[in-house]
């Protein structure tokens, strides 16, 4: 049991190390080398080469004239010390910009994923309970339609109608700029209103898939012998529904939940662009468009590390609710 946690924790570090190496490799791969353009520009301005090298070193934490392995080690050491270089366009440390942007992205992703999960599970459970009813048929059809709508299509439609046509919710930003940025009720309300459309577009298209999965699992569990035995033992309906059916039906959806988290964290690049919502995704795209390599690699690294840690935490909590997962090597089968 301890063994599982040790292995799982080790995997987190191995993965993060791998992703850091990958970002370093990608910087080398980028066409023409990331700093060729900058270097020529600086040299043309008449800045002496030593100073140019110093500047580039500050930007990326690598000595541009050192051998590749030396650059790699420099890069890794400073990344471990949470120094991701300096953004070219903002002239600020990447870590600082990222720290400002990350909470907004996490807010959107976590809020929408929880909402989608809760509503999907409730809907699926009701459908399974009244399997074959008219409600079930309609809900299933709507779920399939929902699954075929990409979230950005939902986002554009919401923006088009809710925001521009009817003027119900704000179209961009994280909060009303006229309200001072500190913890007050007005500010909190403004944050929720500004986050509503991004969260909603992520949520509504995802509910269908979750509902279908929950419906399928519940129907399967309802047919199992142990549910019948529980009925014969005279257990209350509430206990059967929550302890026997719901628990066994939700657990298999867990793997999908993890994948979902990843898709959504990545998907914020599109979502935040549509709503001009200054989270990690918007900064990543901004950096890509302005060739701000330190910024680009920094945001990419942070998004990935956030995902790795999120999955890790979810994995640990999962082993708490499902006793099977920690019982030795059986976990390897999933």
């Amino acid at each position: 049991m301890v063994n599982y946690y040790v292995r799982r924790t080790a995997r987190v570090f191995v993965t993060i190390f791998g992703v850091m190496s990958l970002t370093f490799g990608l910087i080398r791969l980028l066409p023409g080398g990331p700093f060729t353009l900058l270097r020529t520009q600086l040299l043309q301005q008449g800045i002496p080469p030593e100073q140019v090298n110093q500047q580039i070193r500050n930007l990326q934490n690598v000595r541009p004239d050192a051998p590749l392995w030396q650059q790699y080690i420099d890069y890794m050491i400073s990344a471990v010390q949470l120094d991701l270089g300096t953004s070219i366009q903002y002239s600020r440390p990447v870590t600082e910009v990222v720290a400002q942007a990350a909470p907004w992205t996490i807010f959107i992703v976590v809020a929408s994923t929880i909402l989608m999960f809760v509503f999907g599970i409730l809907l699926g459970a009701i459908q399974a309970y009244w399997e074959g009813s008219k409600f079930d048929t309609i809900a299933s059809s709507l779920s399939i339609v929902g699954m075929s709508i990409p979230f950005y299509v939902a986002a554009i439609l919401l923006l088009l109608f809710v925001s521009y046509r009817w003027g119900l919710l704000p179209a961009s930003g994280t909060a009303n700029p006229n309200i001072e940025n500190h913890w007050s009720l007005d500010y909190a309300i403004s944050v929720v209103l500004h986050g509503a459309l991004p969260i909603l577009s992520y949520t509504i298209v995802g509910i269908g898939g979750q509902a279908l999965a929950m419906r399928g699992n519940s129907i399967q569990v309802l047919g199992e012998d142990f549910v019948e035995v529980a009925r014969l033992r005279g257990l209350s309906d509430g206990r059967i529904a929550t302890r026997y059916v719901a628990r066994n039906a939700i657990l298999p959806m867990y793997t999908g939940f993890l994948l979902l988290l990843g898709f959504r964290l990545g998907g914020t690049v599109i979502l935040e662009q549509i709503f001009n919502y200054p989270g990690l995704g918007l900064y990543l795209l901004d950096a890509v468009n302005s060739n701000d390599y330190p910024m680009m690699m920094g945001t990419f690294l942070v998004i990935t590390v956030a995902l790795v840690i999120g999955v890790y935490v979810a994995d640990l909590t999962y082993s708490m609710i499902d006793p099977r997962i920690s019982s030795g090597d059986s976990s390897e089968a999933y």
Partner: protein
Amino acid sequence: MIPVKHTESDASTEGLDWQTESTGADMTRGDRIREFYERSIYEPAVVAWADMRTRVGLLMLSVYLAITAVAVFGLWREPSSSQAPRLLGMFENWSYPLGTTSAGVDLTAELVHATPDIMLMVLAGGVWATGLAVLVGTVAGYKGGRVDRVLMSISDFFMAIPGLPLVIILAITFSPENPIFVGVILTINYWAGLGRSLRSQVLTIREDSYVEASRTMGTSTFRILRKDVIPNLMPYVTVNFVFAARYTIFASVGLFFLGVLPYSQPTWGVTLARAQENGALFVPEAAHWLIAPMIFIVGLALALILMGQGLDRVFNPRVRTRMAGESESTAEEDETITGGTL
């Protein structure tokens, strides 16, 4: 390919070559062709057609194939600016059914001529992602040991990387123009999750008695994988092929919309992006410019999902046996829903 039927008698003899061959020897060639036709084409078609979802899905997919043909054979005009009145709404003028852009481009022409590339992209993404997943999943699950550990570490690593940001960085590194290459890049790490779930399927199939029988008889590993293991994975593979294809459309349109992928001719995502740039969100007369590409995107995704659910019926051995009336199994049909909501 048709999965092994899971009736009791079939399952235990499936791997025994001499038995199938001895029955095969009694049949004439015509009989065998007829049997192949019935088992592989006629029966699945009947099962598939019996399901409403497949029927609708097939119908919708054939519409897209027809659109592809229209574009390939040049049956609809090419898009070019000032070829039509500006900002015509949908169905206002039947020469331009989906309306026109603010530059006077026929939207129908733009969307129709983008379809062949999208179809190619989707096919490439689906084939690459599921093909690699089958390869990794079966080898890891069947071989076990060190091979398994290495392959699973690799797929864990790829699963840990958020797909879209990775694709964005790769897209600016390689600037892929070829639709097949775009499809492969978009699903560069999509195979990993599927590979992992296929592996866990293989782990259970490996222990089944007919596979064990083949192994005891000294059948080569490759033959066991081809004859016994992969056919049983087909339900997962077909359904997940459809999901990979759906992911490819969503991701490609999304990245063309962001302007990250380079383009030499418009795709659905580019149309969407241009509509947004030209203020179609605020100008009520231009709303159709956003809606038209959305119809194309959602329609194709819907067709694929419906097909996937219908195909699940065809390839799912339990459902098939029930349909053929060979078993009174009341097992519930699996609703294999995986993947994300991209």
